[in-house]
């Protein structure tokens, strides 16, 4: 396997976010949900951004959502992505009400990409240590 040269997730607070990456490695998508107000939030942080409660738990997500918006990348910030252009950099609205950044796969770029198209998560094991969640058109 060729060395993976693209940036891997670098964590400011590994104690806080490691469960997400561990779940991704198991090909599971999990999200923080607040005990106090019951709402999901993204990204993981010390306290719920809706009600500031520090009591929250990781919950299994549906893995389904819609394409909120996207851009077709032709000039990546990091040159390690240069061979992939054009590719779809996506803002995904999950059914749980949160948004995350990812990529679209299994879709023709740019012609097959439509805002609000239904998506489902899929996982790519980019290294032995790291797995990234990506999204494809829902089956």
């Amino acid at each position, binding site marked *: 396997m060729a060395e993976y040269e693209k940036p891997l997730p670098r964590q400011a607070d590994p104690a806080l976010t490691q469960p997400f990456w561990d779940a991704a490695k198991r090909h599971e998508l999990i999200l923080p949900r607040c005990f106090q107000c019951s709402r999901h939030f993204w990204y993981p942080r010390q306290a719920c951004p809706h009600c500031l409660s520090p009591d929250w738990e990781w919950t299994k997500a549906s893995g389904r959502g819609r394409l909120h918006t996207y*851009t077709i*990348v032709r*000039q990546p*910030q*990091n040159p390690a992505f240069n061979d992939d252009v054009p590719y779809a950099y996506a803002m995904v609205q999950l059914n749980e009400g949160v*948004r995350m950044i990812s990529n679209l796969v299994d879709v023709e770029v740019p012609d097959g990409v439509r*805002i609000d198209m239904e998506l489902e998560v899929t996982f790519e094991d980019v290294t032995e240590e790291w797995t990234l969640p990506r999204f494809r058109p829902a089956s």
Partner: protein
Amino acid sequence: MSIRGKAAIVGFSELPTLRQYGERSTTGLLAEVARGAIRDAGMRKDDIDGVINREDVNSLELCEALGITPRYTSSMTVHGASGAASILTAAMAVASGVASNVLCMLGQSRPASATRLEAGAGARGGGGPANILTEWEAPFGTVVAANGGYGMIKARHMHEFGTTQEQFAKCAVDQRFNALKNENGLWKDPITIDDVLNSRFVNDPLHLLECVMPCSGANAVIVTSAERARALPNPPVYILGVGGPATSHSVVWQNESITTTPVVQSAPVALQMAEYSARDIEFAQFYDCYTILAMMCLEDAGICAKGEIGAFYESTDTTYAGEFPINTDGGQISAGQPGGGAGGFRHVVEATRQVMGRAGERQVKKGDLCLVNG
């Protein structure tokens, strides 16, 4: 307590916007532009007792370089909005008596080595200190500069409101027309709608000619009280209302409505203080790192209804000669975006120039009441 009309801009200076200023330092550019503004206001260095700049350079270093001993100083940042925000702070300082004559200055001499590859070492490219960008964005191949976020916002605006590529292009074309009469601007050739549409996608749906070019330059203004302003040589540009910049989001995907800007909060505060409505505004200088941002902010300020900015541009001549002039110096898109926040500050400087009646060939016909967004 309202600060309506209690402070005024009484002098300004702007260095030409260039790609590079060679070996010159940022502090050197700021010192030159500060001297220009102080002279333009009919003041002497020792009259200045307040200094506001952006965090890129420590204001104490600037005060020392200029030989100014301030009663109030601040090296602040609200990023691109820092220039407009400096006017808010200066007006509050003057109205409260904390300072009498405040020098606001922003600028940068961009290093020749500021390449895309070096920038790639930053958080957006996965480098630098770990933060939410290095964990939740960079692994997915972020776009260079701020182009990615604005490309996504533009795509969503087109989807929600049916805004067309031609309508975005009209914004860039009108601003280029204005830039042709700006001796300090970067671009000297006219462009057409087709030129914009045929320019390459930096990232779809964002065309190259809808984006700013990072540049070097500096600008400065002097803010003083309304009473002192009346005794000074320039016609005072009264600050009638100010609304603070407010957003809690450092990444676009955290914003509940990505097609809504913080102007929905700041414009009503400024207009209410000024005792005018958006319909009274005669012309506008609006932050324009990209066409999409200027256009959304104009909507959120109430210049037209939400979602109708495309139709507004299509039916309105927004050049300096038109019925509702916008970004009469070409804005950042066509006059360039000097770093250190000077790009956003050019909107304040151009508003000042127009209200003073000193805009020369690009002077607007009705130039008393300007809405500025930084």
